[in-house]
């Protein structure tokens, strides 16, 4: 190794100002002042560092998402049946009626709550909810992380088992879910303007419970439970 090799081996440390003592750095400064070859090497290394930092990113030429989508499986909370082949379907009139009822109920409650004293004209929300859903409502608070997790898990389980459901059933379930989501969004927006409104709060919680109940039933169908009555 000649003196130039010895110096160039330290040029990256010099460039990065990393690991050299003040004495070593001063010695390199002195050498660079007199050695054109080492100054040239240092300039080249500096250019490499500059170029590396300026590299731009490129999107892949191939389409990769479909391969990823095929591999991502949300963690299902419910075990899928292994030998279930039966398909289930609601009757269309029943499902359409349920969907319309949810939309009317949700929109009406929000409108009434925002347009006047809700206590004067509305029947108890809990009674309405109980009549609309045969399952007992378990109050769910706004920010219940378990609620979010439960919805996500049920949605994932439903996605896994959706091929067991009749397409028309899927369509109506999805339409109902959209209606409920709209009701939740309406409640959320209304609550921003009137956070203390009891009816809005109840409606918000009830809408979320409805979504959970519908998801539970749809998932049960998809998993082959078949207990449509809940």
């Amino acid at each position, binding site marked *: 190794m000649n003196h130039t090799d010895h110096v*160039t*081996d330290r*040029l*990256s*440390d010099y460039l990065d100002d*990393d*690991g050299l003592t003040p004495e070593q750095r001063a010695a390199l400064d002195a050498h660079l002042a007199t050695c054109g070859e080492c100054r040239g*090497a240092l300039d*080249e*290394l500096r*250019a*490499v*560092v500059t*170029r*590396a*930092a300026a*590299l*731009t*990113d*490129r*999107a*892949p030429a*191939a389409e*990769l*998402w479909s*391969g*990823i*989508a095929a*591999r*991502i499986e*949300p*963690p299902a909370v419910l075990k899928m049946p292994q030998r279930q082949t039966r398909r289930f379907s609601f009757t269309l009139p029943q499902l359409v009626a349920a969907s319309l009822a949810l939309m009317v109920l949700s929109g009406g409650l929000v409108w009434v709550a925002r347009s006047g004293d809700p206590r004067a004209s509305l029947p108890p929300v809990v009674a309405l909810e109980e009549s609309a859903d045969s399952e007992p409502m378990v109050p769910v*608070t*706004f*920010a*219940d*992380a378990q609620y*979010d*997790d439960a*919805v*996500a*898990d049920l*949605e*994932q389980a439903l*996605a896994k088992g959706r091929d067991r459901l009749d397409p028309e059933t899927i369509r109506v379930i999805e339409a109902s879910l959209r209606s409920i989501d709209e009701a939740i969004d309406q409640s*959320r927006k209304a*609550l*921003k303007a009137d*956070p203390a409104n009891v009816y809005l709060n109840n409606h918000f919680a009830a809408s979320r419970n409805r979504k959970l109940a519908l998801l539970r039933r749809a998932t049960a169908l998809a998993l082959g439970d078949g207990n449509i009555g809940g």
Partner: protein
Amino acid sequence: MTATHATGLLPEIAASPVCRRAISLRSERQERAPKPAAVASSGRAPVGTGAELDDYVARAAAGDVRAFERLYETHVPRVHSLVRRMAGGRDTDELTQDVFVRVWQKLGSFRGDAAFGTWLHRLAVNVVIERFRQDATRRQRLHDGDEIFDTLASPLRSGDIRMDFESALERLPDGAREIFVLHDVEGYKHREIGTLLQISSGTSKAQLHRARMMLRRHLK
């Protein structure tokens, strides 16, 4: 300013774990933030930063595949380029898919104590390194490759000098290339590289210098 005021969310919602994570994300944009993609691979506008990004991250963490697809579209140029450079162009597409599958699996454990892009980037690096570790010859690859000096002795013939540099980068010995990419392209410190690759800082420095000395020929 409280989290509620900052987000405009109801207190109960703002207090939820998902929202706390999103709010934390917003205040943690810091070092080694990813270079934003100009246009997502789908042609759709990439997911922005701040509240929009937080929203997509929260939704994806809750299992929303469509939200995750948008995050993918936004970040895939960055991840694919990182993987391509680190892996020397080998199995880039497959590794990129592995990264995003891992991201999906790990999103539930993402606590927002780093920016999402930084977290994703670190995860991508780990996926590539794990793949390398599966290669029984890795230890050897850190120390061989001198013959590459000959193949890199003269600039490649192409009108695009930037691509020449990328091509030369791919042809570096594996160990030198990984360290060069991590240090000079991605901004990691030798100490961090040493931890990631389970080597000493001195080895990292020596390999970095080696890579730079090879690549300087491709800037002329």
